[in-house]
């Protein structure tokens, strides 16, 4: 798949593939609109990219399910074909590339050497560190080694998916492989987290395209996510929000409220605490998103979503039951439980007191004797 040659400009490749200047301006205008960038950025991005050498991208996959790449290859605007063949030089991706084994690894080594300090490293998946890194090895090298080596010459690292960004499913308690997010391993490079399980494809491609056209990491939030896409919650932009404001909630997935499209908050929707662009960009080319399909948001773009309890408990629900519905028998169980814990602690305390009393008496006897 290696099609990299830094002598070739993006403009040349566009012309070669029959993409006109106007077509490219239009495409960049659409990307700028998607990213909520100022409208003048579209033509400026097009101009900058046309005269730039095709940027080199090295895409590494570690402890992951390939869902992020499945999502990326379904991007509509820009499409992955646009990105691969017209804009970037994807020099290494072990799933998409035709080469394998030594040929693939030497293509990666060459791309990293030729573009040292300039390439973008895309990482998909968490990095297992347990058992000396043996849980994820390729070509005899652990993920930790491969990541550290590839990060050295990267201009920036883009972590696609919640695994690379925050540890993800592999990081979930009890984290059997001692997995870590990329930011825990590499600390001296600009890192952009494009979280989600998987992320929205246009968010991934838009983030890459903005970096290539401006050479700058976009404005990021506290979790290093691009503010253009992660600036507002799903809830803020949800088309069901008016029902939330009116206090109209579906109570089950098949009641009248669900059929009427009312708010899914009480069915566990995590939209109010989840920052992502699903409600505006949507999925599959803007067709729909989970809430539009009748299911609450899982909060998959947020750190720790995997360990935050049931997907079907309302956000306001305490750990012991649904909000406002703590049944009398649960209260009794809790009270009895507390009493039992108290009894155990009391017994332990009494026992400890007796032990100390006994130790004091022994010491006094020794002193007297």
């Amino acid at each position, binding site marked *: 798949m290696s099609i990299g040659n830094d002598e070739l400009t993006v403009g040349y490749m566009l012309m070669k593939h029959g993409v006109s200047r106007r077509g490219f301006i239009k495409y960049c205008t659409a990307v700028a*609109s998607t990213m909520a960038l100022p*409208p003048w950025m579209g033509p400026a991005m097009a101009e900058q990219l046309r005269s730039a050498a095709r940027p080199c991208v090295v895409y590494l996959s570690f402890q992951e399910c390939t869902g992020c790449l499945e999502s990326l290859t379904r991007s509509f605007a820009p499409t992955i074909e646009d990105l691969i063949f017209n804009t970037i030089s994807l020099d290494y991706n072990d799933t998409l590339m035709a080469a394998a084994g030594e040929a693939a690894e030497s293509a990666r080594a060459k791309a990293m050497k030729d573009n040292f300090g300039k390439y973008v490293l895309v990482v998909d998946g968490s990095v297992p560190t347990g058992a000396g890194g043996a849980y994820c090895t390729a070509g005899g090298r652990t993920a930790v080694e491969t990541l550290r080596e590839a990060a050295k010459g990267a201009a920036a690292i883009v972590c696609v998916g919640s695994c690379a960004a925050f540890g993800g499913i592999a990081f979930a308690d009890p984290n059997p492989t001692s997995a870590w997010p990329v930011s825990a391993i590499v600390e001296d490079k600009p890192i952009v987290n494009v979280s989600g399980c998987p992320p929205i494809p246009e968010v991934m491609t838009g983030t890459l395209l903005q970096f290539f056209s401006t050479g700058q990491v976009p404005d990021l939030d506290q979790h290093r996510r691009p503010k253009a896409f992660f600036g507002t919650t799903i809830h803020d932009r949800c088309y069901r929000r008016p029902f939330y404001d009116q206090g109209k909630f579906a109570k089950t997935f098949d009641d009248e409220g669900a059929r*009427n499209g009312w708010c899914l908050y009480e069915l566990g929707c995590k939209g109010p605490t989840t920052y992502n662009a699903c409600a505006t960009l949507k999925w599959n080319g803007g067709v729909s998103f989970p809430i539009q399909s009748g299911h609450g948001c899982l909060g998959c773009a947020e750190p720790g979503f995997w360990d935050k309890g049931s997907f079907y408990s309302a956000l306001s629900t305490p750990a012991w039951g649904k909000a406002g519905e703590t049944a009398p028998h649960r209260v009794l169980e809790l009270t009895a439980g507390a009493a039992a814990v108290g009894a155990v602690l009391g017994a332990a305390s009494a026992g400890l007191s007796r032990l100390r009393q006994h130790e004091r008496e022994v010491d006094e006897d020794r002193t007297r004797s």
Partner: protein
Amino acid sequence: MARPVSRLAEIPVRIEPAAQGAEPCAGLGGGVAALLAELAALLAGLTDSGRPAAIDLRSLPMSPQDRGELERALGEGEVRATIQADGVSIVRETGISGVWWVEHRNARGELMAELLEVAHVPEILASSVDEVAAAARALQARLGLSHATMSARSET
């Protein structure tokens, strides 16, 4: 008890008229009046400094009623251009000279971007310098003329 709403389209939308004393935009929704005021400022910038600008309509939360009002307020101009480049783009001059309504659609006809551009001519319509130079070279080659000959002719 109110009848349950089963479709989004059934949620009534009411346009609040502009506050009194807001002439000359009285009768327009607040969002449309603000948009027209922004266009006026951008047109002044184009006149004074030649600086083009644009407003991304997809970034604005406009109801269908707002949109209809905006279209009526801007009106239709004399120019309408269609571009065939990876899908259709339509560039319409509005009744306000210098304000262009631009729609970009992909090959499947889906709307990718919608802008109000404030410019003498939207950039996407104009031919670029390098394209014109390349076209001149190609045409000269087709006619069997040298670049030096053509340059001499253009100077006379």
